[in-house]
């Protein structure tokens, strides 16, 4: 038996930002950037490890909105267009910097990276679902799901039916896309409300994750604190996030990503280069935006930035992986001396941290797996929660504490002066949806059934935690407000048409095409039956 375990968990999520009605969408750009910088590099990294027979075990939560976008034909084509522009820009940059020794190598690095991304993307014919599915079959990653539209359950879950719908739709969507029911579920923002686990249990979810204090403040007090899961009254296991390893990776100041040799996120050629030159690659209105080509390193706590040196950064990523390994090894060694079972250290991160914010993150991750594999003495073993539960099926019963991994650990990020107004509308709409689902049981009319399904989709989309989060953080607030209103207004209009039994079919069809998340959704997920 190994001395201890480390569970690396990457939570990949973006809100549903599909905008076929727009020629260019800043929101869609989030998706394009994350695919280029995080999701594909992650896939490539696992492939390299598998090729070299390096044992890799990673838990990846793909949120249903993200997975739905990956599976969507329109999004796939849009991304390809984006990637082609990016390749074009990179080629131009290689030429432009041909006599500039400071930046030429960096430009070539980007070109190489984008060409490889293009190759991977083409190999999967634009469908990244296939790629993740393959890695799951290989046993390298364990795919889990999240709530249907990443709804923040402690606040939208006023009605149990809403929590049930968010879970059921997610589980169903996961099975449809990945061919297996999910074993675990990432609670959006780790937002937990005691009792929600009962619903998870119903859908055969075996585990979820909480921030450390969710476990530390559980009742009764957990024997192993966060170094073993507790099992909730309903029988679902809850794993707690390890603070020490979180901070090392997350913190921009004390953590690895702030190292001076790493790439500076805030210096992008979209802002730096001559307007006429860069114009075709920024917003069509002329608004300067990130292109993804960033040529400087963090350098120091100064405005003055030095050119990026890929080699130095790679070297640092290896050193930091070594440091992480060293720290986990010591942490585990210490814990194992006192514990009567091997400790598990759970390290969950937002997937987008790796590659998008911390450019060298994927290299760090790859190096970590390689370094652990190269050691003769096996300091610890990478594990997924479901493997752990197979080894240790008996865990301490306890009720975790209501918590989240947002600022200050509870609900305040999603409930404050900037966003509290949404809950009145979300709750009332949810109640109306539940009533509709209860009233329309055995439906004959196909059109009404479609309208009911679309109403459920619109409500789910309005419930996404991202809108409240964006309102709170203060950038693109208009977009978040507009999305919240749009989906709710669509919902109320559909409800009215359903009740009057007069559906505007043309409009319904338009909605079905734009907000096409969960194609086989059944509005009855909102019914009160069995709650």
């Amino acid at each position: 038996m190994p001395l201890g375990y480390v569970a690396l968990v990457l939570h990949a999520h973006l809100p549903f930002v599909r905008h076929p009605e727009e020629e260019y969408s800043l929101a869609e750009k989030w998706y394009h950037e994350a695919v280029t910088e995080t999701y594909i590099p992650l896939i490539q990294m696992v492939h390299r490890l598998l090729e070299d027979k390096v044992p890799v075990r990673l838990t990846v939560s793909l949120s249903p909105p993200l997975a739905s976008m990956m599976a969507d034909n329109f999004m796939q084509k849009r991304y390809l267009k984006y990637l082609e522009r990016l390749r074009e820009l990179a080629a131009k940059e290689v030429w432009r910097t041909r006599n500039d020794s400071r930046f030429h190598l960096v430009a070539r690095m980007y070109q190489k990276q984008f060409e490889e991304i293009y190759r991977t993307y083409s190999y999967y014919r634009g469908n990244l679902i296939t790629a993740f599915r393959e890695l799951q079959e290989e046993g390298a990653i364990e795919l889990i799901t999240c709530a249907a539209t990443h709804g923040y359950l402690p606040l939208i879950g006023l009605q149990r039916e809403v929590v049930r719908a968010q879970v059921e739709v997610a589980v169903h969507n996961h099975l449809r896309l990945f061919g297996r029911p999910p074993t675990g579920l990432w609670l959006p923002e780790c937002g937990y409300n005691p009792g929600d686990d009962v619903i998870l249990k119903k859908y055969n979810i075996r585990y979820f994750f909480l921030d450390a204090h969710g476990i530390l403040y559980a009742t009764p007090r957990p024997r192993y604190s966060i170094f073993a899961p507790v099992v909730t009254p309903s029988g679902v296991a809850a794993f707690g996030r390890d603070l020490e390893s979180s901070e090392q990776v997350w913190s921009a100041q004390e953590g690895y990503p702030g190292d001076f040799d790493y790439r500076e996120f805030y210096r992008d050629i979209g802002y730096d280069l001559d307007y006429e030159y860069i114009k075709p690659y920024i917003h069509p209105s002329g608004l300067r935006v990130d292109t993804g080509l960033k040529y400087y390193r963090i350098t120091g706590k100064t405005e003055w930035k030095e050119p990026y040196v890929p080699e130095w950064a790679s070297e640092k990523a290896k050193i930091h992986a070594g440091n992480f390994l060293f720290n986990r090894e010591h942490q585990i060694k210490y814990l194992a001396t006192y514990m009567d079972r091997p400790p598990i250290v759970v390290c969950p991160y937002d997937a987008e941290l790796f590659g998008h914010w911390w450019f060298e993150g994927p290299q760090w991750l790859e190096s970590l797996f390689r370094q652990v594999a190269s050691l003769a003495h096996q300091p610890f073993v990478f594990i997924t929660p479901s493997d752990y539960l197979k080894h240790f099926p008996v865990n301490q019963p306890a009720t975790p504490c209501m918590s989240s991994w947002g600022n200050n650990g509870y609900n305040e990020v999603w409930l404050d002066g900037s966003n509290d107004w949404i809950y009145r509308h979300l709750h009332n709409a949810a109640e109306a949806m539940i009533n509709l689902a209860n009233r329309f049981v055995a439906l004959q009319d196909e059109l009404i059934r479609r309208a009911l399904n679309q109403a459920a989709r619109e409500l789910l989309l309005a419930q996404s935690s991202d809108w409240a989060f964006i309102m709170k953080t203060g950038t693109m607030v208009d977009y978040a407000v507009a999305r919240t209103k749009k989906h709710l207004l669509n919902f109320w209009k559909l409800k009215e048409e359903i009740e009057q039994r007069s559906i505007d079919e043309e409009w319904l069809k338009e909605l079905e095409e734009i907000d096409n998340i969960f194609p086989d959704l059944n509005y009855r997920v909102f019914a009160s039956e069995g709650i």
Partner: protein
Amino acid sequence: MELVLALILVGIVAGILYWYFTYKRKPAEKKPLPVPPATPELPPRYGKDQIIALVKDPYWLYVYWEITPEKKAEFERRYGPGSWEASQPVLRVYDLTGAAFDFLHAPYFEIAITDAADNWYIHVGRPQSTFCIDLGRYHPHYGFIALVRSNIVTTPADQPSKVIDPLWPPLEACWQGAGVGKGPAPGISSPVLLQPRR
């Protein structure tokens, strides 16, 4: 003759000036700015008498409410014309910890609010406690009159539990290594992708 000429000249100059100021100074055909289609607003009211409580953190609750004109009319019928204006809106916060639904004996406190408000943050200051809130009005003669009652909510803990399971006694070493006492991890949060540009 000269006077006539001068008058004509003055007339012409005045005409030019008049023309200049009325037509030339006006910007050539003001094009109306494209007005974005007005986003329809969400319903301001749902026609329901309700008060809903949400937990913000171990110390704070949030409530929002709606009182319909019908409820107001009913109030006036029962307590007399003008009784609505004569009374003050009040939130009564029951602490039901340990005795759910025992409203008769539960301790409570009240917050005087204003008729302009339709939501409120309530400082309860008590982790792991159960609350229910009545929205009512204080009438000079009739005292507190409840209008609507909220759902029941429980605040989360803000420290490790004192309850120990004898089968699972806590291991000191595990607790030292977990960073307890620091409270929820500061500043390490999610989701990173949507964070604002610096």
